[in-house]
């Protein structure tokens, strides 16, 4: 069974919501990524979204753009990211890892070699921001063959017919982008999420994660009331950006632990 499903099944039994932090592989430096991943788990992360840097991150705001630039400058590559997951798996066999990025590095490697290597190193899901279901048939086939979950995005602009289409293809969980905009943008409109959720649930029987605009424990807890998982990206990347090599792992762990505590207060309440 895929680690993602196991994780969500366990959480459901405990009536807890999943915390899914995002970091860009290779940021702030190549040697910090695996320690950061372990720190995320220690802080209470349930799934890790690991960003594969791309030269042209069209859907990302300035914070994650800068993370991508730093990572590429450090020599990060798709093969390098896969090697990092292999290293992480030497001591963590249970936390699901989802690679998130743009399609072209995977196109360049080839979907079959990529999917094969994902299975080999222990990647559980893949989210390519610029590959909608319409263009994902080939990718889907290769990922499925190796039991790697294709993770799809849904947006406030997605209509019912498309939600249905994504529901048929998606595995693992579905990632609802809570606002129109790039990563790291603006404020969170909880009422709008609450309005959209019943429509999503009508078709999607997988866990639904919500991301974009979540900045702290409070907003995370409010989102968790509506969704199954909370995704935090830009705010963590900001923490990385504002830390030194000596403090980055501790700072990130502390920040994520704070969010975890806020989420768990929700369960106890």
């Amino acid at each position: 069974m895929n680690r993602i499903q196991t994780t969500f099944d366990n959480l459901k039994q405990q009536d807890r919501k999943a915390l899914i932090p995002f970091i860009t592989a290779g940021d702030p430096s190549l040697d910090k990524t695996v320690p950061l991943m372990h720190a995320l788990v220690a802080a209470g992360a349930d799934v890790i979204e690991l960003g594969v840097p791309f030269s042209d991150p069209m859907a990302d705001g300035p914070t994650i753009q800068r993370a991508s630039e730093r990572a590429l400058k450090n020599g990060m590559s798709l093969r390098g990211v896969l090697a990092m997951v292999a290293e992480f798996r030497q001591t963590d066999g249970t936390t699901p890892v989802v690679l998130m990025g743009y399609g072209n590095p995977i196109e360049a490697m080839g979907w079959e070699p990529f999917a094969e290597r994902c299975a080999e190193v222990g990647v559980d899901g893949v989210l390519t921001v610029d590959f909608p279901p319409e263009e994902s048939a080939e990718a889907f086939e290769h990922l499925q063959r190796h039991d790697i979950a294709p993770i799809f995005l849904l947006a406030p602009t997605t209509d019912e017919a498309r939600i249905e289409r994504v529901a048929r293809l998606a595995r693992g969980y579905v990632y609802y982008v809570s606002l129109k905009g790039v990563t790291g943008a603006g404020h969170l409109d909880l009422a709008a999420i609450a309005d959209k959720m019943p429509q999503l649930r009508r078709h999607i029987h997988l866990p639904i994660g919500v991301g974009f605009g979540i900045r702290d424990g409070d907003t995370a807890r409010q989102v968790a009331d509506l969704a199954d998982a909370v995704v935090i990206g830009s705010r963590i990347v900001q923490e990385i950006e504002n830390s030194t090599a000596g403090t980055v792992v501790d700072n990130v762990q502390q920040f994520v632990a704070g969010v975890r505590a806020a989420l768990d207060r929700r369960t106890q309440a």
Partner: protein
Amino acid sequence: MRLGTLTYSYPDNSGHFGPYGGIYMAETLIPAVEELRREYLRFRDDPDFQAEFAYELQHYVGRPSPIYHAARLSEHLGGAQIYLKREDLNHTGAHKINNAIGQALLAKRMGKKRVIAETGAGMHGVATATVAARFGMECIVYMGADDIQRQAPNVFRMKLLGATVVPVESGSRTLKDACNEAIRDWVTNVESTFYIFGTAAGPHPYPMMVRDFQCVIGNEAKVQMPELIGRQPDTVIACVGGGSNAIGLFHPYIEVDGVRIIGVEAGGHGVASGRHAAPLTGGAKVGVLHGNKVYLMQDADGQIIETHSISAGLDYPGVGPEHCLLKDLGRAEYVVATDEEALAAFDSLCRFEGIIPALESSHALAHAIKIAPTMGRDKVLLVNLSGRGDKDMNTVARLKGITL
């Protein structure tokens, strides 16, 4: 259309030109491109829309653009006769206005009051700012910080026309980064905003729609050439960055037997140097960027590499999907002209014909100048003079060591 035993009719319903094209966009924008496709297909067959488009092209843009026989230059070269399709004489000085008018009319019908655009050389930015003023729309133009430096006169023109020009400091600070930033704006303001995309690339329906609007170039030429010389040209030549002026000239000729089609990419310092912007000629692999699958300049890891061309309008790592298909089918040939060859062609047209061409168009001209002497005097080359060179004064002066 028939090509060999195959019918040429692209794109298919899902926006693919054979293996190229498509809609590789973030989910937030998929409904927007879908709406655009629906609306475009509706108005494409609407006589009122076509009549308004034709009216604007005639009375506002100044079409049809003439075809001019560059007789002195041809005589000097001693071979084939060079004819120029004078898109440089259009209002705003380039072919870009054809497409900007078409998309602005569509935006108006869709009730969008805010338009955005990316620009490289600034010609598409100027065209968009122009039509925004013409139709009373708010206009934001994204332009790479480096391009703002090399195309200062066009930046001022856009501002005069009431547009906001936003410098893009990320990545290589050129056209591709301006595209990234315009896409980010569109994701954020998708409901109020129409993205007037400047070239025949991007997600479906842009490659098809921009081509259709630019086909006025080739459709006119097909009528004008027989009037001038009693037949169609032997060869049509155009420069290719994204490839909108080229596809506008080429597309109506795809089914015309015996007409050779040549696209000229930016060779920069030479393809062997790696410092160029020639994905079709330089052996680039197929990849995905800005919403479509095309030949794309990238490294082994799939990261987009920085391109180089003297001409900001050609300085782009990808190319429109229909050119990719025409290359594979062998219906069009793609070659390069280097910075140096383009500059020499620029000088030649100034001196022999009294026409200052855009550096982009100078690439097409450079190839015509290269092959004309190898052909008989009875052969005819039709070159798309896609824009005028006023915007390039600073660049050319600097290369000649002159301070203006």
